[in-house]
C-alpha cells in the first residue's frame, strides 16, 4: 500500500478492515510512504491494483481528455484530402 503521508493507527486499521472486506481474505498491510502520489491511497494485492491516488486520478482524467481529443487530432492523418491527391 502506498500513501502520500504517514497515517495514524486508526486510519490504518479502518483501511485494513475495508480491504479484507473487498478481497475476502486475510491480508497483511505493508505501508510505503511515497510523497509523489500527491494524495489518496494506492493498493496492490497480488496483480490487482486499486488506484485511489491523486496522480492516478489525474492520469485517468488525462486519458479521458486525450480520447476526447483524439478524433480532432486525427485530422493530420495520412488519408487527408491532401494525401489522396498524390
Amino acid at each position: 500500500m502506498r500513501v502520500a503521508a504517514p497515517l495514524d493507527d486508526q486510519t490504518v486499521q479502518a483501511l485494513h478492515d475495508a480491504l479484507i472486506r473487498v478481497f475476502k481474505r486475510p491480508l497483511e498491510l505493508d505501508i510505503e510512504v511515497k510523497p509523489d502520489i500527491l494524495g489518496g491511497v494506492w493498493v496492490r494485492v497480488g496483480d490487482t491494483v486499486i488506484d485511489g491516488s491523486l496522480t492516478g486520478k489525474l492520469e485517468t482524467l488525462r486519458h479521458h481528455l486525450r480520447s476526447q481529443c483524439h478524433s480532432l487530432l486525427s485530422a493530420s492523418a495520412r488519408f487527408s484530402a491532401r494525401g489522396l491527391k498524390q
Partner: protein
Amino acid sequence: MSDLQAMQQPEAIARVLRSNIGEYQFSLRPVAVGTVMDVGDGIAHISGLYDAMVGEMLLFADDTLGMALNLEENAVGAIILGDARHIVEGSSVRATGNLVSVPVGLDLLGRVVDPLGRPLDGKGPVRASRVRPVEWPAARIIDRAPVNEPLQTGIKAIDALVPIGRGQRELIIGDRQTGKTTIALDTILNQHRDDVLCLYVAIGQRLSTIAQVVNTLERNGALEHTIVVAADASAPAALQYIAPYAGCAMGEDLMYGGRDVLIIYDDLTKHAWAYRQISLLLRRPPGREAYPGDLFYLHSRLLERAAHLDAAHGGGSLTALPIVETQLGDLAAYVPTNIISITDGQIFLEEELFHSGTRPAINAGLSVSRVGGAAQVRAMKSVAGQLHLELAQYREMAVFAQFGTEIDQTTQLALERGSCLREVLKQGPHRPVAMEDQVALYYAVTRGHLDDVPLGKVTVFERQFLEFLRQKRQALRQAITIQRELSEQIESMLVDAITDFKQHDMVLGD
C-alpha cells in the same frame, strides 16, 4: 477542417476542456496490472495478469493497446497494436477485461479506418454507437440459408462462368499484376444498384496503392456504400494480423442487421506473412515454410464467418472475396492450397492471358464456383450455361487447328464462335455491365447472331448494341430484370431487337 479551426481558438479549447473536466466521474475499481518483462519487435512478455483472456485488450502505460495471445504459466505474450517506442521493461500494463473490439455500424460507411476503427481519412471522429469483438464465432448451421441470391459483379466473364452468390466465399487468385484488385474493385462499383454494402480490407499493401483504391471508389461514387479498413505495409504486424477480423466484425454487424454485405480481403498472403512473423516472435514452433501449425485455422475461422442468414435471422448475408497472390502461377504452395480448400471456388487469373490482351485474365478452365450456380439468375443460366463446355471445346480444337490440318465446316464454325466468345468476355476496368445487358449479349453470341460480324469488330458491335438497348429497348431490359428468366416473350423481343439493330443501327465501318 472546421473542427481543426475551432480547436485553434484558445477560448473554445478551454471551454471544451472545462466542461469535460466538470462532467468527469472517477470510479475506483480493482484492475489487474502486470509488468513488462521484455519488449521488442512488436511483442511484449508481461508478468502478472493471471486472469487475462486470450484476445483480451491490454493497455500499456502510454495508452497503446495490446492483445494477449500467449497465456503461459507465469507470463502473458502480447502483441502491441501500435507504436511500441514508449513501452520499456518494467512499465505497467493494465488488463481491460474486454476482448479487442472495433466500432461497428452504418456510421462507418464512407470512411477509411485502421484495424481498430480509428479514422485515417481526416473526416473527423467515427461516430459509432456500438463495438463488436474482432474475433467471434461464425453463424450456426441452423441460422443459415442456402446460397440462392446472386451477387452481380458486373464483370461479364465472372457472372457467366463463375457466378457468385450472396454468402459465398470466392477466392481471387493469381500472380502479381494480373488484375486481382481490379476485379474486386469493379465488383464494389457494381453494388450501388443492388444495395449491397461493401468493405475493402487492405492488408500489408503500399500506402500509394491504398490511396489509389480509395480514390477510385470516391471518383466512381462507390465510397459512400463502402468501408475501407487499411493496415498498410508499414503498420505493425499485429495490426495487419487483426485487420481482416476487424473488417469481418464490421461486416457481420451489418449482416445481422439484415443487410447484404460484400467484403474483400486484399490480400491473405500478406496476412499469413504477418501472422508468421508474430508467431515466430512469440516463439511458437515453426512448421512448413516456417508458418505456424494453425495457419489453416487462421483463415478458416475468418472465411467461415461469411454466411447467408435465414429469414428468421434477418436474411442478411456476408459474401467474402479473399485475394491470394501466387508466385509464378504456383497454385500448390502452402497458403493458396489452404485457401482454395476453404473457399467455395476460385477465380484464377493468368499472367500470360493478361499480356495477350484477354482482360480480365480469367482462366476459364481452372476457375470454378461450387455454389454460385444455384444463385445464378435463370435467364443468365439459359444463355451462359453451355459456355464452360463451348470454351473448353474451343481450346481443344484451337490446338488442333494450329497444326494446319484440314478442318470441316462445323469445326470451322465452332472455332469462329469460340474466338468471338473470347472477344465478348473481354472487358475494360471500372466498366461494369448490367445483368440484363449481359443476357442480351450472350444471347446474341450463343444463338449465332454474331457469326457474320468480323472478329475485330466484336467490341464495336458490343458497344453499339448495348447503347441501342439502353436507348431504344428499355422495355426489354426491364422485362429481363423483372422476369429474370428467358420466357418465349423475352426471347422473341431479343430476336426482334437484334435484327432491328443489325439492319438499321449497326455501323461497323471498314
